[in-house]
């Protein structure tokens, strides 16, 4: 329970930090859930899923459309919490369908097929742009925010992150988590001792999809817009980067990685770009730094630090 101490600065942050940082921290909390839910399938079940943004995007568009049902020609009045949950369940359904097909593929094939999926989704968004808003996406409306003001929204996202982290921690410590680790370490051996490998991989995939979908939906009600960037490759890369820097399969590692990467990208680098008045995207720094980090410590930063200490 010592890690609770780490929560204190986050709890008092709204009293001292400027508005822009509070807003950014809220985004970071949601991003943490993206990363940890990816780690559930990559770090715990050992499956390289490069299409995690599919679940995030599906969750996001589900809630956005349920809150704007006229776009799909319906008349509904769904409370926000229900449409966020719906986002999670629709993502779960897709996770089940995708997992049922793709998890029979091993190693590289899984990575390649899942890498393609987000791009199919982005294409579909553009084909049906009258529903999904095409490249621009659409705004969900100001009345659909998580809470009436920024500080309350901040606490909602913080609570959301904590709930997700606790549930995922409980999951990976349960017998289910142990079976997943067995699958990751040696698929054939796990099969030999009676673990139904495909079933457990599928369960992990569905859970990962559910958390990602809910987080994507929460993000929509925090940012109040939805667009193809929820599906896009830069987000996927940032998620993998955060998980890998922190160290796969450890929960706390990806959480720390997520904070570092997201804040570095959106706070530090964008400040540098503005200060130097460069006409480039702040992503250039992120990618260049990423390449350097991988070259210097391919086993992950915290892993390297941990080894250096011991």
């Amino acid at each position: 329970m010592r890690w609770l101490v780490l929560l204190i600065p986050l709890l008092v942050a709204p009293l001292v930090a400027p508005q822009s940082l509070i807003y950014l921290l809220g985004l970071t909390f949601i991003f943490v859930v993206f990363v940890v839910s990816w780690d559930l399938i990559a770090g715990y079940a050992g499956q390289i899923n490069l299409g995690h943004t599919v679940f995030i995007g599906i969750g996001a568009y589900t809630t956005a459309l349920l809150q704007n049902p006229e776009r799909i020609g319906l008349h509904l009045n769904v409370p926000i919490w229900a449409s966020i949950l719906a986002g999670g369940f629709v993502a779960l359904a897709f996770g089940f369908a995708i997992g049922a097909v793709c998890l029979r593929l091993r190693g590289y094939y899984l990575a390649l097929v899942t890498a393609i999926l987000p791009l199919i989704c982005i294409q579909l968004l553009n084909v049906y742009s009258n529903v999904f808003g095409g490249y621009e996406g659409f705004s969900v409306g100001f009345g659909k925010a998580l809470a009436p003001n920024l500080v309350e929204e901040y606490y909602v996202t913080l609570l959301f992150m904590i709930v997700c982290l606790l549930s995922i921690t409980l999951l990976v410590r349960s017998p289910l988590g142990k079976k997943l680790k067995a699958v990751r370490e040696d698929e054939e051996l796990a099969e030999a001792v009676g673990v139904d490998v495909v079933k457990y991989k599928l369960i992990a995939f569905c859970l990962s999809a559910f958390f990602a979908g809910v987080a994507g939906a929460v993000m929509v009600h925090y940012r109040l817009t939805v667009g193809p960037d929820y599906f896009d490759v830069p987000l996927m890369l940032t998620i993998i980067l955060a998980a890998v820097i922190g160290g796969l399969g450890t929960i706390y590692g990806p959480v720390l990685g997520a904070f570092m990467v997201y804040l570095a990208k959106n706070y530090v680098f964008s400040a540098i770009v503005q200060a130097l008045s460069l006409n480039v995207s702040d992503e250039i720094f992120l990618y260049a730094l990423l390449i350097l980090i991988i070259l210097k410590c391919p086993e992950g930063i915290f892993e390297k630090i941990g080894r250096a200490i011991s």
Partner: protein
Amino acid sequence: MAVMLEILIYGVIIGSIWALVASGFSLVFGVARILNFAHGIFFILGAYLAVVLFPYLGFLSIVPSVLMVGAFGWFVYRFLISPIKGYEVMVILITLALALLMEQIVLAIFKDVSISFPLFLSGVVFLFGVPVPENRLLITAIAFAVIAILDIFITRSKTGKFITATSQDMEASMLVGIDVESVYSVTMAISAMLAGLAGILYAQIYAVNPETALRVLIYAFAIVILGGLGSVRGSVVASFIIGFIQTAVSTLYDPRWAEIVALVTIIVVLIVRPKGLFGVE
């Protein structure tokens, strides 16, 4: 009937460009087990370099452009991939980061405008009654010639045999004195040159912009999955299948659906044959 012929002819044309892209991607995977997410960057770099050099060199600009892309491929292997080759996920991550970095750099230099490369020929010929620009026939001929040369190079030349040996058994190749690291570097350079050339030819038909890199990469993925990872000949066959699907959907239905249908087809094929059409272990 005329429509069928049209699909067939235009399918071969685009398929031949995909074959250049995918054979290189597949070669690197087959030999070095590297999934190179920066492959699309070689493609657009070829196109951009050739367009930049064109005012000075004319069509000769193709030669230095392809060679420079090859050198870049060699550099990428030597300094970025080789040091971390033991970490599978990191190889994916570093090449993906490189791809996005280069895309941003190209975007910063050339802005978000599309480029195209001037045509060799401007006439139109009738092939079985279907009008086909002469330039596209030339492109297809070049692509076929290059793939034939690649095949001969891999099966006949000494370097090619080293490449084949390394792809079959890396440790045994080291034991008989093959410098595996330099085989990998050369393979990467060849793969980059193939993609660079494909980019130049593609820029004669379609507009190229920084985002093209990612689209091309996705096609390369789709093709190698369909053809079977690591099988260069499988990739060539799959390139034409994808080319036909792409042109059929564009001609008969809606160009925006071309990619979606092609990608969904691949997923369906994978359900039936999890190792692709010509998959190797």
